[in-house]
């Protein structure tokens, strides 16, 4: 009864919100028409009466003033990523009166985004992130030009975008290495400063590339990191305020660049925030490398390349599924329930994930520790106690580490009379096909 009431209300609210969105769209068309004929305030220069009031508090700062505000109004900024960084960046830039903001992201909103991606709400789940941001920014300032683009950024799409627009600043709020190199090279080739931020767990990093003769990303990191050393927010986790802080600082850097306040721009400087000790570090970096492959005096890279190939990793932060075992070494998630309590089941996720939620009758043995003698001894001891089927079932979050574990255990414990089996798709598959009460994360 209660569930029914809640469902009906949620449905009503969604219907009303959709209707509201339609009206907003219509209003925007009329407002645009009106704004085309809008006259600036006859008592000032270049701004309307409303703009003077709206931005007065920041124009009273002497570094901004009327002149700075006009610069912001006439600026175009591209933000790549509508996530943990993109949300704070875009909300502060829109509020500050940047004339035109283009925001690009391919993803839809998920429940696990909401703790840090502060512009998205429950009602936005499964909708494109850029549409959600568009709505929120418009509710702050209906007069701004916000251009949402739901697209994957690659060499082709960014070239199109940069060929048809003149951006004053690009903000990197992406979540993967390939996109970071892509944006760097695109900015160098088009002579645009790049405000780069990143965050993971309790740490954040911030710098500005390709600004006033300063270094670019490749000057610092000519070679991409080995893919196995790169951790995503989905695996390593991230505390919301950390990307929040870095994103706000990215907006601040963008405003400094747009208003020519070059002393404050983090070019050839690197700001590191460590939330575990609440400390900032302001590091002095090398200058531009004259031998840099893209910004050097004789660049090797004169047009955009294939960045996924260059980095050996996809331009996203999702896990790519592996398949390294033979058909007979798998079981389906649907077969798990009858094995619980009868077979030996090893859950090879990290302790932290096991603590969040786990199946009953499973033993936690993190993959990272599995090669250590203690872990192998434990498996040997556990195997002694099993009687049925002589099988050991290995389980993890998505079914990748468990395959690696099966392969490793099989090799290290080849003398044991048991069969190691992987659960296809891991706990994701269990949640999806067996019991949706098991949390999906």
């Amino acid at each position, binding site marked *: 009864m209660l569930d029914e009431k809640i469902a009906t209300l949620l449905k009503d609210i969604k219907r009303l919100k959709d209707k509201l969105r339609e009206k907003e769209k219509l209003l925007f068309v009329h407002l645009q028409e009106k704004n085309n004929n809008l006259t600036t305030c006859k008592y000032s220069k270049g701004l309307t009466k409303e703009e003077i009031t709206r931005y007065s508090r920041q124009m009273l700062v002497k570094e901004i003033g009327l002149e700075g505000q006009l610069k912001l109004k006439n600026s175009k900024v591209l933000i790549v990523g509508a996530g943990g960084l993109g949300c704070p960046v875009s909300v502060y830039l829109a509020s500050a009166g940047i004339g035109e903001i283009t925001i690009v992201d391919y993803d839809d909103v998920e429940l696990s985004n909401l703790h840090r991606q502060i512009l998205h709400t429950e009602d936005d789940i499964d909708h494109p992130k850029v549409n959600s941001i568009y709505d929120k920014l418009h509710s702050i300032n209906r007069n701004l030009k916000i251009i949402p683009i739901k697209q994957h950024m690659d060499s082709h799409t960014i070239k199109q975008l940069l060929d048809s627009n003149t951006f004053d600043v690009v903000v990197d*709020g*992406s979540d993967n290495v390939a996109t970071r190199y892509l944006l760097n090279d695109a900015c160098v080739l088009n002579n645009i400063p790049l405000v780069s931020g990143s965050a993971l767990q309790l740490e954040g990093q911030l710098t500005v590339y390709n600004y006033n003769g300063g270094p670019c990303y490749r000057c610092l990191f000519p070679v991409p990191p080995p893919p*196995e050393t790169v*951790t995503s927010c989905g695996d390593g986790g991230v505390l919301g305020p950390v990307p929040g802080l870095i994103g706000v600082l990215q907006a601040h850097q963008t405003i400094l660049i747009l208003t020519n306040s070059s002393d404050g721009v983090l070019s050839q400087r690197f700001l590191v925030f460590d939330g575990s000790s609440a400390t900032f570090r302001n*590091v002095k970096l090398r200058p531009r490398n004259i031998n840099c492959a893209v910004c050097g005096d004789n660049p090797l890279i004169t047009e955009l390349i294939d960045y996924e190939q260059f980095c050996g990793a996809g331009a996203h932060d999702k896990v790519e599924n592996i398949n390294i075992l033979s058909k007979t070494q798998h079981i389906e998630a649907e077969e798990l329930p009858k094995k619980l309590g009868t077979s030996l089941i090893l859950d090879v996720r990290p302790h932290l994930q096991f603590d969040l939620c786990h199946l009953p009758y499973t033993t936690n043995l993190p993959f990272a520790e599995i090669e250590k003698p203690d872990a192998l001894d434990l498996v040997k001891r556990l195997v002694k106690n099993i009687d049925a089927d002589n099988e050991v079932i290995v389980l993890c979050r998505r079914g990748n580490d468990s395959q690696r574990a099966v392969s490793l255990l099989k090799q290290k414990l080849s003398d044991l009379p048991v069969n190691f089996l992987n659960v296809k798709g891991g706990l994701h598959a269990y949640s999806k096909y067996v019991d949706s009460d098991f949390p999906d994360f």
Partner: protein
Amino acid sequence: MDIKVQFGGGAELLFDNKKHYDISLPSKEKPWIIGDLLFWLKEHLLKERPDLFLQDNSVRPGILVLINDTDWELMDTVNYEIQLNDCIMFISTLHGG
């Protein structure tokens, strides 16, 4: 010679998940340079696969080395002569957002 060694951005995961170490380098004939320190760290503190920290006698791509908050590229990289109380930091770059 007492110095501080720090890790950040995930590089600490290779060093027993500790971000700060106060270490005492044994005295030797030639001055200690960063290149020596890299191998000393590999021998004494590194807990994970060496190739996740070192490659070709230097740090692996994606790790920034800071000497007293200055990029080691401004300080002669592996050849920098370590001074008493120096703070040497290894920071891995982050990519998440």
